[in-house]
Structures are given as structure tokens and as C-alpha cells.
């Protein structure tokens, strides 16, 4: 698992408009540069934020994907999907 790479995708999407554009145009190609496990890549391409959250990705960075409207996510979709996840209750 390389949760770091999932988080990095979220960070780059929010902070780098050029990357966000490429992720929007060709998600599979834009994700090639990241060291993602196959199931992580699959969940990202599906916009499955509940699965990514369950893998340990930080929800703030996942919301960054929805804020930029990539990977099939917008805020309503994000909200609906993340609400289906089991809260992690990290402390």
C-alpha cells in the first residue's frame, strides 16, 4: 500500500491547476507518474472515495478531488460516497 501517493494526488490536484487539468482530461495517463498499488489506482479512477478513505487516505485531500471536479467527483457525489464509509476514529 502506498497511501502517501493517494494523498499526493489529492494535494497536486488542489494546488496544481495544470495537473488538475490533465487529471480531468486523461485520468489514467495523469496517474501513471504516481507509485500507486493497483487497487489504489482503480479506486481513484472510479472516484471511489469511500474505498480510498478505508485504505487510509486523508479525507481533506480526497475532498480536493471533488473541489476540482475530477475523477467523476463533484461535491454532491463526494458527500454521498464518503458518507457510506465507516468513520475511522483515528486518535
Amino acid at each position, binding site marked *: 500500500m502506498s497511501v502517501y501517493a493517494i494523498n499526493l494526488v489529492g494535494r497536486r490536484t488542489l494546488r496544481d491547476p495544470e495537473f488538475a487539468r490533465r487529471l480531468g482530461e486523461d485520468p489514467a495517463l495523469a496517474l501513471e507518474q504516481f507509485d500507486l498499488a493497483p487497487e489504489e489506482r482503480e479506486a481513484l479512477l472510479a472516484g471511489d472515495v469511500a474505498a480510498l478513505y478505508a485504505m487510509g487516505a486523508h479525507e481533506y485531500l480526497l475532498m480536493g478531488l471533488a473541489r476540482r471536479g475530477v475523477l467523476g467527483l463533484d461535491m454532491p457525489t463526494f458527500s454521498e460516497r464518503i458518507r457510506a464509509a*465507516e468513520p475511522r476514529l483515528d486518535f
Partner: protein
Amino acid sequence: MARVIAGCSVPHNPFLPVKVKEDPEGINARCFAEVAEAIGELEPDLVVAFSPDHLNTVFFDNLPTLLVGIVDEFSGPNDDYPPVEPRTLVSDPDLARHIFHQALRSDFDLSRSESLQVDHSVLVPLQIMDISPVVVPIILNVLAPPVMNATRAYAFGRAVGEAIRSYERDLAVLVLADGGVIQEVAGPRIRPGKPDGAPGQDWLARVIELLGDGDVETLLAEATPWQIAEAGNAAGELLTALAMLGALGDSPGVPRLIEPEPETGHMFAFWEAGR
């Protein structure tokens, strides 16, 4: 010598600037006005701010628990929330360096940044209150678990307060904490169709009750990591308030203002030192 004259805890939700404008009679507008009025009366020379970062300024490649900005000025927001106006704040690198050094001597191993941008955190309350004070920024990791204990945050604040009081220039310092008390942001416990939720309403009421009584000791005992996690993924922001209270000195006493805002899960509070 420098003095800590007052402390406040205010929210920083990035949509608050809109909310305050749309509802000028609402609790947020009213309480921000009260805090701004108190600050105006006391005329602090400088603000030392205890703020969270939402994984914008720092990231998992290098994530300090405690960070002080030692900068002439700093800018933000770096997280692109349109309601938050871009601004550059003047800082005081000499005091910041003194805090860094004295905190180290008090066994708090801070990180330091000599080139800093911040996210919406501290900028939102300053924007709403329409003030541009000199600000020494201190960032606490309270949003990327695991986070420090409540007791440690309070002790850190004590060390910062002692550092301020040992600073040779004659400065009246306001310590400011920004953040909520209970809140879920972007996690499973958000409200349908919203980016946030406010689980843990009992905890918010309890925090208000204890702080209203000036009972920080009981609050520190009850603010366990588990309790905070139960109150939402952003409930760790209470630690910024605990650090601020530590910086106020021996006993924060009864606040001049303390009011919960249950919808978003934050509070407004203001203490004058030594009262």
C-alpha cells in the same frame, strides 16, 4: 517586558465570511463583532496565533507537530477558498525566534519555517473582524492523526506564554486560537450534501460548561484522544484553544465571552489575562 493581555478562540470555517455577510444579525456576526470590540478596547500590539493547518502548508512528506513561522511577513490563503481574501500579514521574526528558542529550552522541539504561506485558518477571523495585526503564526498539527495530547497542547501554550513574558520589548500580546470544538469535515459524518457536520454536540456543551466555569483542569482530563476523535475529524482543533489558554498564564479564569455555535460546532470565547 512583553505581556499576554488577553486570549480568544474564534472559528475559521472558510465559508464564514459569506455567512456573516448574509446573516448580519446571526450568532457568527454578533460574536465576531464582540470579539473585535474586545480586541479594539485592549489595543494589543501583536497577536500570537495558534492555528491548525489543513494539509495545505505542510504535507505528509514533512509534517511537524508544532511549527513557528520566523518571518518578516507571510501570505495566504494557499487553499483557494474564494470567500477568503488573499492577504499578506506583517510578522515579528525577532519575537518568533525568541519563542522558538525559549520553547526549545522548555523541552518543546518545534519546527521552524523562514518562508511561510498559510491556509484559510488564521486569515478568516482577521478578515471578518477587519483587522490586520502583526501576527506571529504557530501551527499545530491537530488534523492529521495521530495528534498530540490535550495536556501537551496546554503545556506547549504555557511554554509559549512564558516565552512571551520573558521577551524584553514592551509589547501587549493577544493570543488567538482559531478552530472549532466539534466538527467533521469531508469525512463520513458530514451532513447530506454538505462538506461538514457537527457530531459530538454533548462534547461541545461540556467544553462550553467547563470553560465557562474556568475549569481547564477538568477539561484537560476529559479531552482524551478518544473523546476528541468521537467529536469529529476536526475536533482536534480544540487543542489550539488549549494552547492559547496555556499561554494566558496560571489561570484563565472566567471568560468575558463564551458562546457555542452548534450548527458548525465552534465557539467564540474571550479571556482577559488575570481576571
